[in-house]
């Protein structure tokens, strides 16, 4: 696998196509999903595309070092933390609004009407 990865420009281009496709799918989801959880999943796809790209560049450009792999691990860690925070927000949002559809989230919403907590 490592040999395949490091097998020159053709391999790098292939990997770039894969990660670009992954990122584009993520962006498409980000812009079109109405459910907040779906948007979060799409965002994870974007992050994963970036993480894969880090690993690829590490293997192709500087095989003797681990900087890219470390960055990928960082991305994974950040994504995990992000999911925790985002899901907490969604849970609270749902308990107030009974929906996590982002197109319904404009205005004060029922949770604030009449000053109720």
């Amino acid at each position, binding site marked *: 696998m490592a040999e395949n990865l490091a097998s020159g420009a053709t391999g790098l281009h292939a990997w770039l196509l894969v990660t670009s496709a992954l990122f584009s799918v993520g962006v498409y989801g*980000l*812009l*079109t999903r109405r459910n907040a959880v779906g948007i979060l999943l799409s965002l994870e796809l974007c992050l994963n595309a970036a993480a894969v790209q880090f690993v690829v560049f590490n293997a192709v450009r500087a095989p003797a070092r681990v900087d890219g792999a470390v960055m990928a691990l960082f991305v994974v860690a950040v994504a995990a933390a992000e999911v925790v925070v985002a899901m907490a927000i969604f849970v609270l949002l749902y308990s107030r609004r009974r929906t996590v559809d*982002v*197109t319904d*989230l*404009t*205005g004060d919403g029922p949770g604030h009407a009449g000053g109720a907590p």
Partner: protein
Amino acid sequence: MTCDHSAIVQHAWVIPALPLLSFALVGLVLRPLNARLAGAVAAAAVALSAALGWWLAFDYLQFAPPAEPLPTLIPWQVEWLRFQDGLRIDAGTLLDPASVLLVVVVTTVSALVHVYSLAYMKGEPGYGRYFAVLNLFTFSMLGLVLAPNLVQMFVCWELVGASSFFLIGFWYDRPAAVAASKKAFVVTRFADLGLLLAILLLGQAAFDVRTQLGASAGDSQALDFAFLGRADVLAALAHQAPVLGGMTALTLGCLLLFVGGAGKSAMFPLHIWLPDAMEGPTPVSALIHAATMVVAGVYLVARAFPLLAAADGVLTVVLAVGTFTALFAAAIGCTQDDLKRVLAFSTLSQLGYMMLALGTCGGGDPAGRSAALFHLFTHAFFKALLFLGAGAVLHAAHTGDVWHLGGLRRKMPLTHALFLLATLAIAGIWPLSGFFSKDEVLAAALHGGHPLVFAVGLGVAGLTAFYMARVYLLVFWGEPRREASAHVHEAPLTMVLPMGALAVLAAVAGFVPVSRWVALPGTAEHAGIDWLVAGPATAAALAGFGAAGWLYGGDLGRSDAAVARLGRLYGALRHKFWIDELYLWVARKVMFRLVAAPIAWFDRMVVDGTMHGVGLLTRLCGAGVQAAQTGQAQAYAAWALAGGLAVVGLLWAAGRAG
């Protein structure tokens, strides 16, 4: 003796600095803390100033043996504004006989008024504020008096006007006081515009002259009084080309200067603010609207006297305005009911006397200038005393209407005696101070070749005696005509003592050889009393007393009959010749309709219209862009993405092109 030997001459700036410091201390620190302490500190500061003022006068008089003229010194000055070489404005102290004289008058009367006010204003809510502004006034007046150039004088001139405004409107919950303070401010500001224009005009003309003179101008600055008084400068100014309507800058500038002076000194037709200014507390009237601020105009004319004397015909204007005001105000004073208003018209009339004296110098003999300053000196004391006496009456009876008072001499014996002394002094009875100064004014008129002015002056002397005797008799003799004046009490000692001090000054001030000290070179000496003048003047005063005694001394029915016989004339006098109404008519009908209304239309339609148009355009643009702000996070994300792609596209295109 030289300047260095006298600490106070060297440091005369301390005299105005003390009230300024006290103003800051009282106004900012003590006023909210302790009102009584504030008043005490303010009075102490001015009293110290007065002591220093007397010391200054004493030391200054040592400078020359009696045969020589006293020197003009500028012991202290700092650069304040530098426009260019030759047009530098300094702040400093100018000491000459006139300024030292005024320093003594201002500090003395101010100190006595401060002490008097300690009792008079007791219990007033604005006690601390009152003393702070009174201090500010004292500082400004001293700065004005000591100014070595026209600009410092103008700055202090405006400060004096502002403090006058604050003090007239001291009781700002009374509509009449507010209206009076506004009126005083607007009228004097209007006149001050003349002074400002005069400074600009004279400054430019004098600067041109200074450039012509070249090296011989030395370090003198164009707006310094020292420079403007030089003979070569005056000759050059007089020979400049006319600037407007055949008048040189000198003539026009001096006329405008006199407009400024006439506004502050309430000369006809700018006199309308002074009677209304009596709405302020009475000690303020004594200090500002009788003894000091209103003589600033006289002082300005006396200070700029060489200029006015060199300008064609300006002194004739001064003479005419002064004479008319003296007569006009004295006549109105005979018909007013309010004690303070009578005194206000009396002040107008006496100020007219001083201006008249200045105006008689057109023939070349500046004796009238000395007479004016002498009369200013004596008038300050007896008029302040009259006002403080009126204040004591007001304090006790709570009314100033002479028809409500009466018989006060038994209840207020001290006030009565002091008021009587001041009445005799203003009427010019020997040996009180008014006799000597009035004598000099009339002598200046007679010897200056103005017999008509002399005759009017005599008439005014008679009228002065008449209206003063009238209020004196109505207030202090007869029986109380209303309940209020039946239960009065003598003023407290804090009020009587300053009045006593003023009475001493009013009695002896005539023996001070002021006019010899302040005489300009070339003044004809005249020794002793000129009985050709003093005789008729005393006779006129006695006639005035006699007439008042006959009309008001016993049966008041006689005065009613006299009023009925005078008919129309009495009505005109009583309504002050409807000058106020005329002003209102001009203001409302002419200025509002013909000037203000079109300007208001232009403002509403054109100026506001443009602004509204710009506002509307901005709102329309906003409405267009508003559509983009939907509150949808995904829409924003799409815009962000589009922006990012655009940047990448640009970089890519730039990379290809490069």
